[in-house]
């Protein structure tokens, strides 16, 4: 007898029912699976019999009116704007005629719409109907330029303008506009072609390479804002910019990055790099290919700590695009989340802390006072600036963020999309970064995973290795107490994660619904049991700011992090041993002196993971219970 998987039998039965078979037909066919099949097939049948939602006739008619209008535009676009000689239309033409014909069409288009419209179009954004007129006007300008170097520079200026339009569109909360992206690509390509005719033009080459690097960085940072059906064309533009740099400015790299290598997403991995053979490396325990397509790869030495920008292919393999830094243990980024007190074009103030913007600051939505935002703060040569500003998940009714600390179980070095951490399975593919500076991500390592719960799945957003060897198999959960899944059975939900409260926690001590808590937990069979918790923030209490960073130095109760000082008084709750060089999460409010006053602090590391400049001896250091010594 041939063994058939139940799943295969179920699929066959469902297909047969689509073709008219009944549930009973299937059960007769597979009597041994009947008990299992019956409820599934009955459910499938009931679902398929669900009456469809009825559309309002007025809505359908209104929609058709829009289609008719668009159809008229499309039908008239099929008619030639002007007579184009068949010598050009048919493709049987002398090559030099084509740009003349195209530019002539552009001139006629501009003339047809009128000078006033052209003027109005100059500030048009990609979503405006005048945007095409704007681009046509730029084409006209370029056509009249006879000097090739000047033409290339004008094209690069226009390309830069497209990038700014893309930035501004995303800043308003919209997706990356395909028309601006496509126009940027066209202009870049035209400039590259000019350079190919002038290989000795080092100044032009330098500009092309530098602008390609800026644009690639920006487009990679915007990856999440790209509509899914535009991913392929987006990946092509990014690959072309990357290959331009590899090829020294001409776009013709010997080893070219392929767009499909970008389809799985982009992330950064920070950690120690080890060569495992040829192009294969491990960065923080994660297999990464670093080869001729990796920019700056010659800087990498085995054993060095590095931050690598990596593309995930559709089969889950990691390929390094760029080696972005080589540094031995200095702090990279910090994070600040909280309500906006003030926002200008120059920066944002949260809990009294002013975080300036620079030209690279990425805003993924319009920001206004009172809104909760998350800011990635980075160190630059000009000091601390905002790298990225995004609306916080706390603004919407969507899933809350969950931080889960536990021990990695199993081998995760190979291309795998799922990690098991203290019995919980995480989908790693959405994550934007792996920080492995504290140790390799490997079986037995302790990690903190920032995730969101989606139905039954946990989607990782960031992964931080806390140590390469977990001290025990306890877990820590930081998240929002959603309420009870079953009060009687003591089953809680923390940011969508079901946990069991220990019977030692009296009911009256349960956290208030909506409170942010830090819970100690351990696995007991199939259950994750919470044995103790700390309330960080309650819905009725003051709204706190959350700062994640590295303790650079301590002066008593004043800690200096990347974003500045925080005050952690003896009355605050401190979990872990304070020491410079360790990472910390601090929750607090704005103090009277404008400095963040911590109420709860969680030290993430057991040992310092970064080297700091000085190590002043603290006169008073809060102990783990938060009481003064």
């Amino acid at each position, binding site marked *: *007898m041939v063994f*058939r998987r*139940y*799943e*295969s039998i*179920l*699929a*066959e039965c469902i*297909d*047969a029912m689509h*073709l*008219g*078979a*009944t549930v009973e*037909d299937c059960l*007769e066919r597979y009597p041994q699976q009947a008990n299992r099949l019956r*409820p*599934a097939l009955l*459910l*499938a049948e*009931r*679902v*398929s*019999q*669900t*009456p*469809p*939602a*009825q*559309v*309002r006739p007025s*809505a*359908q008619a209104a*929609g*058709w009116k*829009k*289609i008719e209008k*668009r*159809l008229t535009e*499309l039908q008239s676009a*099929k008619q030639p704007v002007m007579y184009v000689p068949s010598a050009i239309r048919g493709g049987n033409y002398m090559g030099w005629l084509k740009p003349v014909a195209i530019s002539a069409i552009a001139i006629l288009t501009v003339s047809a719409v009128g000078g006033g419209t052209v003027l109005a179009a100059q500030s048009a954004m990609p979503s405006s109907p005048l945007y095409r007129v704007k681009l046509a006007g730029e084409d006209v300008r370029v056509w009249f330029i006879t000097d090739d170097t000047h033409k290339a520079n004008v094209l690069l200026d226009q390309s830069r303008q497209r990038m700014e339009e893309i930035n501004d569109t995303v800043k308003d*909360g*919209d*997706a990356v506009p395909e028309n601006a992206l496509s126009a940027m690509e066209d202009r870049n390509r035209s400039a590259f072609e000019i350079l190919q005719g002038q290989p000795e033009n080092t100044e032009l080459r330098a500009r092309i390479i530098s602008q390609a690097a800026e644009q690639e960085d920006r487009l990679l940072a915007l990856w*999440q*804002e790209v*509509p*899914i*059906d535009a991913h392929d064309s987006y990946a092509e533009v990014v690959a072309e910019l990357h290959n331009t740099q590899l090829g020294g400015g001409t776009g013709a790299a010997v080893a070219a990055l392929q767009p499909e290598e970008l389809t799985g997403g982009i992330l950064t991995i920070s950690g120690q790099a080890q060569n495992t053979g040829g192009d294969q490396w491990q960065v923080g325990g994660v297999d990464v290919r670093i080869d001729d397509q990796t920019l700056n790869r010659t800087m990498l030495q085995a054993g060095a700590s590095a931050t690598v920008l990596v593309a995930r292919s559709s089969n889950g393999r990691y390929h390094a695009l760029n080696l972005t830094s080589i540094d031995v243990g200095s702090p990279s980024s910090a994070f600040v989340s909280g309500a906006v007190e003030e926002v200008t074009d120059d920066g944002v103030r949260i809990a009294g802390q002013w975080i300036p913007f620079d030209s690279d600051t990425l805003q993924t*939505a*319009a920001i206004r006072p009172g*809104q909760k935002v998350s800011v990635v703060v980075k160190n630059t040569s000009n000091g601390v600036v905002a790298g990225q500003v*995004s*609306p916080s*998940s706390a603004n*919407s*009714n*969507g899933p809350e963020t969950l931080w889960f600390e536990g021990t990695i179980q199993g081998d995760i070095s190979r291309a795998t999309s799922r990690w098991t951490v203290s019995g919980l399975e995480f989908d790693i593919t959405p994550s934007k970064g792996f920080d492995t500076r504290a140790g390799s991500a490997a079986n037995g390592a302790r990690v903190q995973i920032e995730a969101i719960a989606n*139905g*039954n799945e946990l989607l990782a957003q960031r992964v931080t290795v806390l140590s390469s060897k977990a001290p025990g198999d306890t877990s820590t959960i930081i998240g929002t107490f959603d309420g009870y899944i079953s009060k009687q059975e003591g089953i809680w939900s923390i940011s969508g994660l079901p946990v069991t409260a220990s019977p030692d926690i009296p009911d009256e001590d349960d956290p208030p619904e909506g409170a942010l808590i830090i819970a100690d937990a351990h696995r007991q069979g199939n259950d994750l049991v919470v044995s103790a918790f700390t309330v960080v923030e309650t819905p009725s209490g003051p709204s706190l700011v959350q700062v994640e960073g590295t303790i650079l130095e301590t002066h008593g109760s004043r800690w200096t992090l990347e974003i500045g000082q925080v005050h952690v008084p003896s009355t605050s709750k401190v979990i872990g041993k304070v020491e410079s060089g360790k990472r910390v999460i601090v929750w607090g409010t704005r103090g009277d002196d404008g400095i963040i006053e911590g109420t709860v602090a969680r030290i993430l590391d057991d040992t310092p993971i970064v080297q700091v400049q000085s190590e002043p001896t603290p006169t008073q250091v809060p102990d783990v219970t938060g009481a003064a010594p």
Partner: protein
Amino acid sequence: MRAVAWSQTLTSLPKERKPDVVAQQATTDDDAVRKQAELNTEWELVRRAQSFDNDAIHELYEKYFPKIYNYAFMQMGDVQAAEDLASDVMLKMIESINKYTFRGLPFGAWVFRIARNRLIDLHRRRKRRGEVDLSETLSTALANPQALAERALERGQLQIALKHLTEEQRQVIVLKFIEGFDNRSVGRIMGRSEGAIKSLQHRALGALRRIIHPEDRY
């Protein structure tokens, strides 16, 4: 008659036959011819629409607008939003129709792929703007999905239960069991293999069953 044909086929076939062959045997010759004729008719319609033939486009619009509306409404629960999304998808369909190439798959699969991508983009955009995720409103409408009727599922009840599935499970349930696409088409819409869709439908039915009947093990 079709069912009788299947059971007759079952008794005559040895059990060692591969499952695909058995499923195919369940299709009568009439079904195969009818299905092929439907595909050919639709392809002719699409070809005329690609030349911007008004009547052909109107026919496609009348066919797919209600389907896309139902698909969107099942997941968003908001009439206005579903109408807007259906209208957007129809516009995109017209604007991109020249990119469609017949490869033996229904034109509908291509249209639904546009719809799915639009839905995903809409959710992401609303999240970025801090707006309420429309699919979340369903959960407040009825907090206890287990209070669903034992027999036929009403649309509202199904919508609430769907809310508690993952996005992929939700897609499979709606595309496979409500819209009636086969595994291959569902795979093309979702960008997954046929094998993955078979697994997904198994898990999705199981999850749906646990929501509706938590006391049962599936």
